[in-house]
């Protein structure tokens, strides 16, 4: 099963599930906001997206990952809007028969997401100002 969501608010993690009797690997990834961006202290990242494309692109990418790797299930939640330091901006859960394909599939999915899904980061500084994040910090 492929499930992707764009969330404007805190991410609720997917429930772990003991009923995947054919799957030996459940890999969970949380991408969190660090306290520095572009070498400066920040209080949050603000994620901007192209709403009319984001859901379509992330769903197509998840389906492509499931074809490219022997993955049983892939679930993804990507947060947009203001995400305070420490909170999760990306949550991915992958189930597969074996560890290697689950980890490889996760790595590929996130790398491609960072190339293809139209989401951008704005650094929010302690004085409340913000600027578009430099592309070197992706």
């Amino acid at each position, binding site marked *: 099963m492929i499930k992707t969501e764009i969330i404007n608010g805190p991410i609720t993690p997917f429930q772990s599930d003991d009923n995947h009797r054919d799957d030996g690997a459940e890999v969970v990834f949380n991408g969190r906001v660090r306290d520095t961006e572009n070498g400066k202290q920040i209080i949050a990242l603000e994620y901007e997206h*192209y709403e*009319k494309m984001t859901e379509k692109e992330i769903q197509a990418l998840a389906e492509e990952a499931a074809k490219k790797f022997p993955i049983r299930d892939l679930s993804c939640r990507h947060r947009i809007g203001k995400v305070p330091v420490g909170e999760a901006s990306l949550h991915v859960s992958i189930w597969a028969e074996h560890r290697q394909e689950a980890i490889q599939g996760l790595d590929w999915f996130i790398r491609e997401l960072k190339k293809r899904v*139209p989401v951008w980061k704005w650094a929010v500084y302690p004085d409340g100002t913000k600027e578009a994040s430099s592309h070197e*910090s992706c």
Partner: protein
Amino acid sequence: MSDTITIRVKCFSHVKQALKKDELALSIPKGSSTDVVINAVLDMAGGKLNAIKMRVAVNHSYEPEPIMLKEGDEVALIPPVQGG
């Protein structure tokens, strides 16, 4: 009959920051391609976007090669994306 078409340009990230707008309407000669839009936006940004490699989406789909535009198209300039 008009020799120009009007398109909508969506601006994100550094493009939005440079133009101080998230959307604009642009009149361009009929028969223009997406390259005309990119060059117009680069001119408007006064050099601030020259170092940024941008992709283009037309009506919500990436277009890796220049395509001819028509009246009412929505063109998004896509700076390097930064999700995750």
